[in-house]
């Protein structure tokens, strides 16, 4: 089984860690995000420090530094995606164009896919309307 190591950090540590990883030619596996139980955003930078994934987590921040200058598109695409889905802003990230969501969904201030009505609620609403 692949080993996964969670390390909680503050947002000031994001860039120095990325620089250290880049110097060691460590691959950035992905930048992930999800809302935790408390409703706070948990963003993680997962690095392949073979054979382990070292996952650096920042919780509850909506403004984060971009590591695009260090990891180029390996980071910027993931950052753009997180911006679209969760509305997190990455300082220094070019967000002039959308990556995945239609342009009109950007009007929701990046609160796209993950913030939309849960499907079960939508089904309930549609069923009620159909009943009328």
């Amino acid at each position, binding site marked *: *089984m692949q080993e*996964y190591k969670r390390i909680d950090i503050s947002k000031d540590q994001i860039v120095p860690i990325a620089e250290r990883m880049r110097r060691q030619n460590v691959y*950035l596996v992905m930048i992930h995000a999800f*809302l935790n139980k408390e409703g706070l955003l948990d963003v993680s930078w997962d690095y392949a420090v073979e*054979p382990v*994934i070292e996952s650096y987590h920042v919780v509850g921040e909506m403004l984060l530094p971009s590591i695009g200058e260090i990891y180029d*598109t390996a980071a910027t695409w993931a950052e753009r995606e997180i911006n679209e889905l969760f509305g997190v802003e990455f300082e220094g990230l070019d967000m002039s164009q959308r990556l*995945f969501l239609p342009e009109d969904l950007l009007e929701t201030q990046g609160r796209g896919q993950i913030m939309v009505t*849960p499907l079960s609620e939508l089904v309930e609403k549609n069923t009620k309307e159909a009943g009328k």
Partner: protein
Amino acid sequence: MSYIVPIGPYHPALEEPIHAKLYTEGEIIKDAECFVGYNHRGIEKLATERNAIQTLVLVERVCGICSHSHAFTYAMCVEAINGTEVPKRGQYIRVITAELERLHSHFLWLGIACHIIGHDSMFMHIWDERELVMDILEKMTGNRVNYAMVTIGGARRDIDDDLRREILDACQKLKAPLDRITEIALTDKTIAMRTKGVGLLPTADAIRLGAVGPHARASGVDIDVRRDSPYSCYDEFEFKVPVVDSCDVFARVVVRALECYESIKIIQQALENLPAGPINLGTKLPKIKEGMAVCRHEAPRGQLSHLVVGNGSLTNHRVSVHVPSFKNTPTVPFMLRNNTVADAGLIIASIDPCFSCLDR
């Protein structure tokens, strides 16, 4: 004269939608941009409304070619969260299916590459041989794509002795045509002229841009999750990781052709040493415990990663899927620079892109 040449998102030459803008000076591409997102299906969101077994069915639909890779990786995540130990026979069957999937995916790509190059007899020859792999997959799983071979805690279908011998025979039969295909790929003048020195991605740039899989290995980057971070039972097999450092489209052809031999080797070892015992842990619907896991799998196109967050209920709290094309597509504009417009199609195809996969 400067032109902006748009390709796609819907274009007869594209199997899947992507929009590329080529900024040209005469015939030469000076810069390029790629736009994706035309197939966004909200699969990650849908996964938060489904239980683990339903999610296996859902994530298989992320991609038609590497469907097993998605189910395999998602199952590994849930098993990691729940601390489930998969029976050895189940692990072996998962690996056999994964390597058969790699074979058919690489054959498919090699055929398409030859078709784009204009070598259509080679294209038809390769796809003819691919049918042997597809027939085996169909016999094993009942399907040509979306195999449904994975369940949480193992595999869904067993391989009996007759089928085991049949797959071993098929592997043996594949070797001669693969030798022929590899020889033609390495020596044919048309292929060499269209691919050598085209679409360069130097090693340092491949690392910087985060290229993965055969695409990175063709740029001299020696990475392979199966070897570097062994999962399932991959550490029980001997195989090589082909790495070529000419960094061009030709290298991508060579790496994929050589990887087919290694996949055959893994399948043969797995079938010859197939352990006895159960293939899974039964059919009880599993709860996904509170916790999270990120698992990686070396899919045919490269490193595939899934993040699963569980909250102790039957459904997923969050599923995040990142496919190899998510890493490889951003390298395309870099590779297009200083090549001719005529080579753009081949260069885009050389990463073996899957835009539906990428968009999810």
